[in-house]
């Protein structure tokens, strides 16, 4: 059996909407092997974002377990979960989610503040991360001064700067033109193959999904195909 980074067991999550309980994830189980690049697909509203949020410790499951590095993160306290996110997980969103008031390099530096690093060291690492995504020449630009593709690359640099083992990307190319999409996918693949990052990426695009080693289909809160 391959080395499992994240093991999901019997995971359930319901939301209440208009007085009705909607079961978004229904006893879902899956393994994420270390070093894997998984594409998560499925119709809109099938629970992809919900699953990703649970995997990254942004949301709480109603029941089930998410075992990461030997510990179940489901019952962790808010603070412990925050600590775990800070050190183990990098997030990339469809709409980049950069802070508009911060320059590119300041956005990338932000998560490093949680590690008590001296300012000079933070700067150095942030500059390295920006260099890695090919934006060394845009450090002092504000997000509004960058193209969508560039913003997403800054967001990837921010996700990488703390050197997490696990990167979660929710439709990272959903808002980009084909050319920028290709650049972002190249970058994610590069992170997976050359840096060994484990990646789970939600996507609607077959081309994007083709970059992954495995495609998991989600339907009605369950894994329809590819979960094994």
């Amino acid at each position, binding site marked *: 059996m391959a080395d499992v980074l994240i093991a999901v067991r019997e995971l359930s999550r319901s939301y209440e909407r208009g007085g009705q309980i909607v079961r978004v994830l229904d006893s879902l189980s899956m393994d994420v092997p270390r070093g894997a690049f998984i594409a998560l697909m499925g119709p809109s509203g099938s629970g992809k974002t919900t699953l990703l949020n649970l995997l*990254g410790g942004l949301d709480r499951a109603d029941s089930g377990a998410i075992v990461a590095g030997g510990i179940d993160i489901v019952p962790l306290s808010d603070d412990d979960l925050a600590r775990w996110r800070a050190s183990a997980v990098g997030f990339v969103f469809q709409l980049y989610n950069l802070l508009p008031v911060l320059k590119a390099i300041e956005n990338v530096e932000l*998560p490093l503040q949680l590690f008590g690093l001296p300012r000079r060291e933070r700067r150095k690492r942030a500059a390295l991360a920006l260099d890695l995504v090919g934006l060394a020449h845009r450090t002092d630009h504000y997000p509004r001064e960058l193209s969508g593709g560039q913003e997403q690359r800054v967001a990837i640099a921010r996700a990488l700067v703390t050197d997490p083992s696990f990167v979660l990307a929710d439709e990272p190319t959903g808002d980009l033109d084909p050319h920028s999409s290709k650049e972002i996918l190249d970058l994610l693949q590069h992170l997976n193959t050359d840096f060994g990052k484990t990646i789970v990426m939600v996507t609607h695009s077959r081309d994007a999904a083709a970059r992954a080693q495995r495609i998991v289909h989600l339907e009605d809160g369950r894994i329809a195909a590819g979960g094994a």
Partner: protein
Amino acid sequence: MVPWRLVFAHARAQPLRWALTAGSIALAVFLYCTLQTVLAALDSLASGVSGNRLIASSAVSLFQSLPLSGVERIRAARIDGVREVGHWTWFGGVYRDPKEFFPRFGVDVETMRRQYGDLAPSGEAYLLSADDWDRFARSKGGCVVGRGLADRYALAVGDPLVLEGDIYPGTWQFEIVGVYASDNPTYDEETMFFHWSYLNEGMGRIDLVGTYTIDFAPGADAAAISAAVDDLFRNSSNRTLTQSEAAFQAQFISMWGNVGLLFGFIGASVIFATAVIALNTMLLGVRERVKEIGVLATLGFRRRSLSALFLAESFVICLGGAGLGMLLASALWHGQPLRMATVIFPAFGVPDSTLFVALGIGVGLALLAGVAPAVMASRVSIVRALREG
């Protein structure tokens, strides 16, 4: 764990909003400091008075004259403890321009010297050399002016000083024979003293004075003396009200109404209004930045860090504003004399205690405006925040 860079990035991104909020706090704190400074200055006016002096004025009104004969009458009564009886008379009048105001009093120079000058047993209020006192006493139309007054109008000994009378009509010529100083905040350096007898002669000997100044020996019964003095005039047409010099001074102050209460009310209202403004700004900030809060939480910032972020912003705005207001007040009111109508504050400066309270107000405002947003920020649901626009 406060991401300070982010705090200042928001200030950088919305300079107008930050400046207006901090500016309104600065203005409120400046106003508070100024009002307190006026109150402290009013207090100090009465604080340095002699504890061994009574002032008798007309029981009818502060502006009603008393007969000169009353001075002799008090002396002749030989009231236990009374040491010296003098008199002061308010002249009014105009020097150069009605807007150029300073107080002018006609006095009996010899008794004034024994009550307020170098011969006063309780210490001198007006500092003038013995030679100057002698010269003043000998001159008929001589006058002495305070150092501040001399500086203001570039007056020196030997200069003429001409007043246009209003209460006492006519043009009055004086010659400056001395410039006094004072190191007691109650006794300003902005007053002119001249011989009452010169005024009286010019007016055809009407023999009226403003107040009687009654010095008594230390340890004497002040209440008994003032009762005895008032008794002397009880059945005359010139009844007196005799009170301590402090109480007499306070009378002028009370002409301003109940300033302490009024100032307190104004200050509190303005600070309350400012608190509402600051709270509104901060709440607006949280609502606009739900997404940012979600992103910070995603990156691993803990709930208390999110709270700290908004508290820190509130402290930067409120303490920054308060500091600015304090600085402004301290720079403007730094112990110089200030003339307000007929009252002169010899040393008009912001008291340390006021600055201390102003700092407290800054902290209070920061907490008031910051706690609710901080709590809101810590309660934001990450998932919902990320789903928002």
